[in-house]
């Protein structure tokens, strides 16, 4: 009994699919003809392109219902186009400008036959296809793993941990509400420089209960309440007399303030 029901279900699905497909194709054909008549070949080609795009989109959306032959056909075409595109792009964007043009001396350069040398290690890759000499391809593979890991080793220091490297004590962004002269002191070393966004924030937050406290900007008071807004906003500045002036400024982004009654009413100026 179940097979009969499944059979009937498949048949109805097939009929519905065929009807829908026919309707779409007829509509696109008419649309192309109308523009073809009105604007000649250009108009026809334009609408034909739009029609093809519509068919591709509907084919992919048909996958939402279930995996069907139309989607499978469109998927193979997509993979074929993508492999073809990538192969052609690697040849025209990477290999020709960096290797072939230098070897044959394209656009006025002197042909440099030394560039024939990279071909030999390059051909080692293709020993992977052979049964007996597979180990030869291992040489080039391991060389590239060494390059990859060597670059990754230094990469960890440039991308995530880069900030300490720049070591630029005097970094001032003159944006209108970020008048921040980072005269350097230890807390700042880690606050926003150690790695993207600063490791100190991660640990400060893990250690501290993230309550928020906001002090008025104008008051310069040596003693300060110790609740932090999830990170330290201290900004030590050497003034001319050489004494340290501790100014605790509010964060320039007016984040929600969960404490400090006095502050709320005096939100002057900053939206």
């Amino acid at each position, binding site marked *: 009994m179940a097979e009969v029901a499944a059979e009937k279900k498949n048949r109805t699905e097939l009929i519905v699919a065929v009807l829908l497909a026919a309707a779409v194709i007829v509509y696109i054909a008419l649309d192309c003809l109308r523009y073809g008549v009105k604007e000649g070949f250009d108009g026809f080609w334009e609408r034909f392109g739009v029609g093809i795009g519509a068919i591709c989109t509907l084919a992919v959306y048909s996958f939402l219902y279930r995996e069907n032959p139309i989607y499978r056909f469109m998927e193979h075409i997509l993979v074929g186009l993508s492999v073809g595109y990538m192969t052609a792009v*690697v040849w025209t964007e*990477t290999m020709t400008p960096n290797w072939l043009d230098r070897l044959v001396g394209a656009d006025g350069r002197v042909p440099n036959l030394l560039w024939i040398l*990279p071909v030999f290690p390059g051909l080692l890759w293709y020993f992977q296809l052979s049964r007996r000499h597979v180990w030869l391809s291992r040489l080039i593979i391991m060389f590239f793993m060494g390059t990859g890991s060597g670059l990754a080793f230094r990469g960890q220091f440039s991308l995530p941990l880069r900030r300490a490297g720049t070591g630029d004590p005097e970094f001032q962004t003159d944006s209108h509400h970020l008048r921040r002269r980072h005269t350097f002191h230890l807390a700042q070393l880690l606050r926003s420089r150690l790695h993207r966004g600063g490791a100190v924030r991660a640990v400060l*937050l893990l250690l501290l209960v993230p309550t928020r406290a906001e002090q008025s900007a104008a008051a310069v008071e040596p003693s300060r309440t110790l609740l932090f807004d999830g990170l330290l906003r201290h900004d030590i500045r050497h003034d001319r007399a050489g004494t340290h002036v501790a100014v605790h400024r509010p964060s320039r982004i007016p984040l929600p303030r969960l404490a400090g009654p006095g502050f709320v009413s005096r939100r002057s100026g900053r939206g």
Partner: protein
Amino acid sequence: MRRYLIMVLTFVGGLYFFLEFVLPEETGISDMVAEIGKVTLVIGGFAFLLGVINLLRLHTAKITMRRPGYHNSIALMVALFFMVIVHLWKYYANADDDDSVMRIYNLLWDRIRVPIDSTIFSLLAFYIVSAAYRSFRIKSAEAALMMGTAVIVMLGQIPMGQKVTLWLKGYETSPDWWWLAQVRVDTIREWLMQVMNAAAQRGIILGAAVGALALSMRIWLSLERGSFFDRQ
């Protein structure tokens, strides 16, 4: 003996880039970095046909043996060669816009590849909703916490959601209930994203950076064990 040769090769592969990074500028080691980078790129570039050969082998086998669905393989092969030919023709004839080859190329790219890419990207919207529906079940305290945060962040992002707590804004001036004005869905969302989420991310970034460092050191110095690495 081969094992030792492979270890040396792996080490040499990464040596130059490490030295270029560590040694200061004056040693002049970094003048060649662009050149060496290009040579490595070219040698790596030669491998671009390997994957294609395997794909062609797979699909020609499917066609020759008439396995079910071989018409899809024919479509794939036709699309592949057609795209390669049109792209190379466009490159070598450096066709400009009103050439016929550009017309075909635009058809393949703007009319087939780009619509399908953005349609598959849009499938995400359907999958997000069905994944959220299927897997957000309050099985444990953490699951409840995760769902609560998700709802707050989502509500805080859309106008209708913000309206749910917008009436709290009126309390901003009242002396003893001033804090109530802050506890709104969008302000909590902002705080969650700006403070909690950002800090949690940094914890993971730091951990991953140190982990990546250790693994790259192990691979570079061939300390890594496991079937792939200590082969003869």
